[in-house]
């Protein structure tokens, strides 16, 4: 699983039947210190509570679909938790820091 920051939402009215009611979010992958790294992904919200600005962790590949209410769905990345805090040996990352400036 990787850390990510929710930076937007995707609205798709017509989609695969199993994805009805599933929230799709734009997630920027982060390094462990909270710096953006790599290409943005669209992740399904597996906890149904993630929102813009939030620090999350997400799972990729086949396991992403298992986070959904209907588990046989075409989903590549899914948010499986909201981060309260990351305790690092060289400085912490705070999940409540919604504006994206990591105070590591």
């Amino acid at each position, binding site marked *: 699983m990787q850390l990510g920051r929710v930076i937007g939402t995707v609205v798709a009215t017509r989609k695969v039947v199993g994805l009805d009611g599933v929230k799709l979010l734009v997630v920027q992958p982060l390094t*462990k210190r909270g710096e953006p790294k790599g290409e943005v992904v669209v992740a399904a919200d597996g*906890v149904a*509570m993630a929102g813009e600005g939030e620090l999350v962790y997400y799972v990729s*590949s086949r*396991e992403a679909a298992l986070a959904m209410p209907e588990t046989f769905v075409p989903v590549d990345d899914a948010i499986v*938790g909201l*981060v*309260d*805090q990351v305790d690092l040996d060289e400085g912490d990352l705070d999940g409540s820091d919604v504006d994206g400036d990591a105070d590591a």
Partner: protein
Amino acid sequence: MKLGRVSGTVVSTICSPVFRARKLLLCDLVDGAGNPLGGYTIAVDAVGVGVGELVLIIDEGNSARQVVATPDAPIRAVIIGKVDAVDQANSAN
């Protein structure tokens, strides 16, 4: 399987049910000599390790679900061992 060095913990209240009451550790991926490879992964601790330790990580869903004994869990990375030593032909460690 991958080698990792535990570098921190992730605290999460709102999460998928499988992560409740399980410890999430942030692990830097390392090579056989313990040098960081640049990446990291957040893994569930199945053995009881702490920060700074060299660990063995599986990053594959079927094995991960078997370890946590939950058939439909959205889980992929699990710490399944604490490494005592790595013997490599062409390295000092």
